[in-house]
């Protein structure tokens, strides 16, 4: 369905089986399928956890927490059943990588869930797929059924005497459900309102039982680590950022696509070489390097050459996030881009926490008026102040996700905001008549 691309700098680990017909379980077995879980069955749980910890694998959903460490938080003994929950609610604008894994290599995710289960002592896993990805849910449903038919799932898996069950689950359209506590609420049949932490899901999760929640790409990486070893995987990436990652290049690029590159790869090379540079002789204006929730980097910051790993991006004042790299050329209007970004968060905010509900609403109102020529100077600082005061004041990170990009837009592109003042038309494009939203007091 979605086109595959390739570049010589790619290091294919998670994408190794893309385009190889691995959706078919027999083909998957030919391509080393289900070997990793059989290896895991010969290992002690702590051995598996330490292997994954030492590989430097960090959560590919966006938070970048060490996966092995996350698993180690699950208590050994638990009166309630433990669960593995695969987060396939991919919805962060700019991100379209899990889609390819589900489409081309669903059994790798199943294997990853099983290995996580063996590591923490869970016997049940759920694979949650966002509602819009119906064709992928169908692929997952068939993959699970095929694994049961082979006896890989259910009772006495691979003659180990152990039981492991995996079930599919579908969403129905909600970005916030990608947040782990909201994901559990959704799986329990409720609105995706986040839960307060502590207790963390590793201790109190699904139906009160200890739960590990990992992104689909994270889990799909695990079988490769089991077979290749922690050292091999760690050495593919940069210090403390093991392995490779699927980067989703989008926006104003000659060759957008999903490319698997080593952690720590140069952002500049990613744009100008892998992504084929900016079309039509235009210049780079900025890059949103980790999905819509993160701070934009200006062309100067990109050209200064930043490494694409969790720590280097944090140091550069942004975040590696979900691997969605959105590229803007010099015809893009930052105010309009900010408006579209905030419209999204306003739409997705569940309204549970007031700073997020009111903050996104006021930011949207202000940006609509501002972009259409009704802006006053005070708005610029108001937006900044408003966003700053949303940070860290909500149950889930949706409020932060809305605030962080706005702060960066205003701070780094203030001039563009000022160019919209005094009823001047947007210097970049058509616009739609002044809107009459009120100015914040």
């Amino acid at each position, binding site marked *: 369905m979605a086109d595959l691309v390739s570049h010589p700098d790619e290091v294919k680990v998670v994408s190794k089986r893309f385009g190889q017909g691995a959706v078919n379980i027999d083909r998957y077995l030919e391509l080393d399928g289900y070997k990793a879980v059989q290896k895991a069955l010969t290992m002690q749980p702590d051995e598996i956890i330490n292997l994954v910890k030492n590989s430097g694998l960090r959560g590919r959903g966006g938070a970048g927490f060490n996966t092995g460490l996350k698993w180690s938080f699950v208590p050994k003994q638990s009166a309630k059943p433990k669960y593995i929950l695969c987060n396939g609610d991919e*919805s962060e*604008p*700019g991100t379209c990588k899990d889609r390819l894994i589900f489409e081309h290599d669903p059994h790798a995710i199943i294997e990853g869930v099983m290995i996580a289960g063996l590591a923490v002592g869970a016997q049940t896993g759920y694979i949650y797929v966002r509602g*819009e990805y119906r*064709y992928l849910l169908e692929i997952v449903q068939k993959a699970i059924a095929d694994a049961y038919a082979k006896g890989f799932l259910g009772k006495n898996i691979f003659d180990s005497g152990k039981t492991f069950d995996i079930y599919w689950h579908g969403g129905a359209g*909600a970005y916030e459900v990608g947040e782990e506590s909201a994901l559990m609420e959704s799986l329990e*049949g409720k609105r995706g309102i986040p839960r307060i932490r502590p207790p963390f899901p590793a201790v109190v999760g699904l139906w009160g039982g200890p739960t590990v929640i990992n992104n689909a790409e994270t889990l799909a990486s695990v079988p490769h680590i089991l077979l290749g070893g922690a050292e091999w995987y760690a050495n593919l990436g940069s210090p403390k950022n093991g392995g490779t990652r699927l980067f989703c290049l989008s926006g104003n690029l000659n060759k957008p696509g999903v490319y698997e590159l080593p952690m720590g790869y140069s952002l500049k090379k990613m744009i100008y070489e892998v992504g084929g540079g900016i079309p039509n002789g235009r210049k780079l204006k900025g890059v949103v390097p980790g999905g*819509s929730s993160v701070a934009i980097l200006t062309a100067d910051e990109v050209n200064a050459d930043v490494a694409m790993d969790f720590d280097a991006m944090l140091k550069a004042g942004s975040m590696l996030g979900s691997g969605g790299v*959105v590229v803007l050329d010099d015809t893009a209007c930052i105010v309009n881009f900010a408006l579209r970004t905030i419209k*999204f968060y306003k739409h997705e905010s569940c309204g549970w926490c007031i700073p997020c509900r009111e903050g996104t609403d006021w930011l949207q109102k202000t940006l609509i008026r501002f972009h259409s020529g009704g802006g006053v100077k005070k708005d610029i600082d108001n937006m900044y102040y408003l966003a700053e005061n949303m940070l860290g004041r909500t149950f889930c990170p949706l409020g932060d996700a809305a605030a962080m990009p706005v702060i960066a837009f205003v701070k780094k592109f203030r001039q563009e905001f000022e160019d919209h003042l005094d009823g001047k038309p947007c210097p970049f494009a058509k616009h739609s008549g002044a809107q009459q939203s009120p100015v914040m007091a």
Partner: protein
Amino acid sequence: MKFSDKFEKRFTEMLAHYPTPRSVLVPTLLYAQDEVGYLSDEVIAELANRLSLTELDVRNVISYYSMLTTKPRGKFNVQVCTNIACMLRGGEELMEHCEQKLGIGNKGTTADGVFTLEEVECIGACSWAPAVQVNYDFHENLTPAKLDKVLDECRKRIG
């Protein structure tokens, strides 16, 4: 209230997957909507009854999820993504094009009941932008002309 055999088989299977029956609710609502066209009062009452929930519980869940609707839609739900990655490659222009071609606005349905138009948030097609989902089918790397073909195909399928 009668659903298809496939629906019933799936529903029974799903109930065995969770410790609480309520857990089947979100995917079941979407499957029910796919069969009936929307979440009618009858569907809501039926599912509430089956899962020992109040109708209010069910409605409360429905209102949270953007794909769920209690109002009928056209046969083809044309969902145009205008989020950032699509916007940079012409998503907003595609939306305008649809509005003009179909003569309806966001969330409107054509008088013949064939098309509903909806501006949607990121559908996970960023690297193949701009993209549109018609019901569950993805159409990517679109131009207005390519989208016209997609819509014309839809009309042909109606006959």
